[in-house]
């Protein structure tokens, strides 16, 4: 749809980064069409299906949607890459390409210039092999932007800062009970348990706690109700009239002029031809959710459950959510000692599939989008709650990621703690 479109303006993050004399812009990276997909292969033009490969396992997909970003970092072509994460689109490819992907708190990095998938979830983030680079770039991009309505205002930014006692303090780590499901690759849990044991053994300041987030298990249905609704709405502008691809029969229907019936056909052909299968699937799903018959039972309910999920996260963290009002903030401070600092959760359920298998399934009509959606089980709760999350490799070249999750706004402490784990050679698995 936008293959011939060139934006007349720059995104805020590009404006910031391009002014840094020590940074050199190499190019754009590929991704799934409109950032929808987990494999990095959704492309309606089908130019070169295998043009993004997993640098570590060249017969496997890199993961998506930020496939090119993860692959370019993993193959050491670049020092860092930018991606967006709506339900795991940075973290999943980072895990599959065994690199790091950081999704900051929602609203920290400006979305101005980012093509919308689902505004209430879309988050700009950073991929790199080096935690110091991630932190450096994040500092550059972590700025209020008046051009983005959801950019976190200054008054909240000043509330969240780096904890000076970070390195001397005790870290309380929570493990959500609800994450232990059977659908995973067996190595996910074996690796995860080893890492927990290593942490316990070799980092004396760390203590581990089981925590409960009952709504975790509802996250996928919540996500796949809300996200496609926003998608259906956001995709409505791609009619080929002002920009983008347009089919000739849409010109012809236009020439019949005026009445409503014909106006509907004005762009049907263009949308039908120039939007890919997954995009169309989500548009249909979203429009179903938003239709007046199901709005209250689906969309509204999902919104309420999303709020409940956020509340549950707020109850388990030691720090208060900076978005809550001052009064609540103070009340929470009293029992500051309860609650954990960070959560540890695996990033992905499975290792990257082979491209040839996906294509075979596709050709035989055996695609199963539901299985792709289930892959987001570990990543969407933090998207729904807007929490800062980084995915780091559990072990080198394993394609399994470990997510470290912080309270909303606690991005810098999260990065420092992550660095601590990474440089402590005894925590992650070294095979």
């Amino acid at each position, binding site marked *: 749809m936008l293959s011939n479109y060139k934006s007349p303006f720059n995104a805020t993050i590009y404006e910031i980064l391009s002014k840094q004399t020590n940074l050199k812009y190499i190019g754009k990276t590929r991704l799934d069409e409109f950032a929808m997909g987990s494999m990095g292969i959704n492309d309606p033009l089908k130019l070169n299906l295998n043009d993004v490969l997993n640098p570590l396992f060249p017969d496997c997909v890199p993961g998506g949607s930020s496939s090119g970003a993860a692959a370019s970092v993993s193959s050491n072509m670049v020092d860092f890459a930018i991606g967006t994460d709506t339900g795991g689109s940075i973290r999943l490819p980072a895990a599959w390409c065994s690199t790091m992907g950081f999704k900051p708190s929602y609203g920290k990095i400006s979305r101005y210039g980012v093509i919308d998938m689902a505004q209430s979830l879309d988050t700009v983030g950073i991929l790199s092999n080096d935690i110091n680079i991630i932190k450096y770039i994040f500092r550059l991009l972590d700025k209020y932007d008046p051009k983005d309505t959801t950019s976190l205002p200054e008054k909240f930014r000043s509330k969240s800062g780096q904890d000076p006692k970070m390195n001397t303090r005790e870290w309380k780590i929570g493990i959500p009970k609800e994450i232990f499901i059977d659908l995973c690759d067996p190595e996910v849990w074996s690796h995860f348990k080893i890492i927990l044991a290593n942490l316990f053994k070799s980092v004396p300041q760390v203590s581990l706690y089981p925590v409960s987030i009952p709504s975790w298990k509802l996250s996928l249905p919540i996500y796949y109700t809300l996200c496609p609704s926003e998608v259906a709405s956001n995709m409505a*502008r791609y009619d080929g009239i002002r920009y983008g691809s347009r089919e000739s029969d849409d010109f012809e229907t236009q020439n019949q002029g005026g009445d409503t019936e014909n106006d509907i056909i004005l762009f049907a052909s263009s949308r039908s031809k120039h939007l890919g299968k997954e995009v169309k699937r989500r548009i249909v799903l979203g429009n179903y959710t938003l239709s007046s018959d199901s709005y209250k039972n689906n969309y509204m309910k999902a919104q309420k459950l999303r709020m409940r999920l956020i509340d549950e996260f707020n109850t388990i963290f030691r720090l208060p959510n900076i978005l809550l009002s001052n009064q609540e903030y103070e009340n929470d401070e009293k029992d500051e000692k309860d609650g954990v600092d960070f959560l540890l959760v695996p990033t992905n359920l499975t290792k990257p599939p082979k491209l040839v298998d996906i294509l075979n399934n596709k050709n035989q009509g055996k695609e199963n989008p539901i299985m792709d959606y289930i892959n987001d089980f570990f990543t969407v709760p933090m998207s729904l709650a807007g929490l800062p999350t980084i995915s780091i490799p559990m072990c080198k070249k394993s394609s399994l990621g470990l997510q470290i999750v912080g309270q909303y706004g606690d991005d810098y402490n999260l990065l420092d703690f992550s660095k601590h784990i990474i440089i402590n050679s005894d925590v992650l698995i070294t095979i």
Partner: protein
Amino acid sequence: MTSIANEYQLKCGLEIHTQLNTEKKLFSLAKNDPFGSISSPNHHVSYFDAALPGTRPILNYECVLKALKLAISLNCDVNLNSHFDRKHYFYGDQPQGYQLTQHYSPIASNGYLNLHSDIDNLDTPTKKINIIQLQLEQDTGMSHYDNYEKKTMIDLNRSNVPLIELVTEPNFDSVPQVIAFLKKYQNLVRRINVSTGNLETGAIRVDVNVSVGDYPRVELKNLSNTSSISNAIKYEYDRQINIIKQGKAAELLRYEETRGWNGYETIKLRSKETTIDYRYMPDPELGCIRLDYSIIKDIKKSLPISTDDEIRIFLNEPYNLSLKNAKLLCIQNGKNEYYTNGEVKKYYLDSFNLFREVIPPSFERDCKIIANWVINELLGDLNKLELPLKNIQELFPPTKFIEFIKLLQNGKVSNTGGKRLLFYILENIQTKQFKGNIDLQYLIQKLNIEIKSSVDGEELLKQCQSIIDNINNPKLIENIKSGKKKNSLNYLVGIAMRQTRGRVKPTEYQRIFKNILMIK
């Protein structure tokens, strides 16, 4: 008496879209100028207005302020936490594929506007029109179909222009009520300066719901001016009554439908089967419009008093204006290009207050002379000369005007002479003949209209006698003498006045004619 009257009772409700006259658009920094730039289409269009990918809406609070002014003027409850929803439908001139509006939580609701029998010229007692809600929303672009090129052309100058949608309850039971409400609403939006209020340009667009008795309503669209609104309602009312009388109501008036107006009949546009599901969704990135309660009080303070209240003030002491004159001062008609009601009101009030200072309180009733001369004479002359009121402010301000009125009051100049003098002054202002101060005394001399304080009685007697001789109408004279036609005396006085150009007081002539004709 219920059945027949109620069975055919007309019920109307209005849905009014009003473009706010803000400087910028609702969610972008593009200029809000949908009609000034009609010759340069797609001129005031930001990236957001064209819905380019990656652009975001930023709410313009000027629109919120104007919406609140209107809401408070319409006695609404203000929603301190309203928010925007997306209303989805495809249209060539709807760039986002949805309109940002306030479906679930509008900015104001539950208001009313009263129509009065005297001020609003209705034959019913005071009528209260309830307003269900006011919502802020985006206007769409415009499509122009070019028959020659066979192309639809899209102009996005209007895209994202701020609109207020106002919905009333179906409280209207006659066409004059609808028209009176629209006039009053137009005046209101102009008075509080939130819109140009013009139906002709589409700054105000009106849809009317029409139903008869308890049958479902029919929504009438594409009504571009007051007469099409009035004619469409009448046509639709008759159409529905005919259906009921023919016993086809169960079939033809079963569901709500939408009809258009083509100038002489209403035409079906949409019915139940073709209704669009707008798939409303709260906008995921525009937060609530959060308002502090104090803003309602502050805005109330900033608003002018209501037109109705102001008219009542002018109807009473000390002004004692006629309803017509009071309305002229208070109601903005938007049509006269030479003066606004506000300019006239200021000129009148300044003159009135100056005059009141110089006359004894017991003569307060004499103040009426100000209204007569400002509204009847001055405005009449301005219209005749096509001279804007603001152009006379420098040479003929209220202070000068009062000097002029005093001449009349003191009997220095008669009414007739005064009219000549006023017209002469205005005419010369227009042709720029005056240099500096206007010397009224000099002009009286020049025009030869000064009333002679010592009149030559002999000469006047001669003049009057010759008038009686010249009209040569014994029957008229007889009637005057016998008292049959008393007013005819004034006819004679008028002739005499004209001959002497108002230099002699009419009472003087009356006295002389009476003497000659021997009337008591």
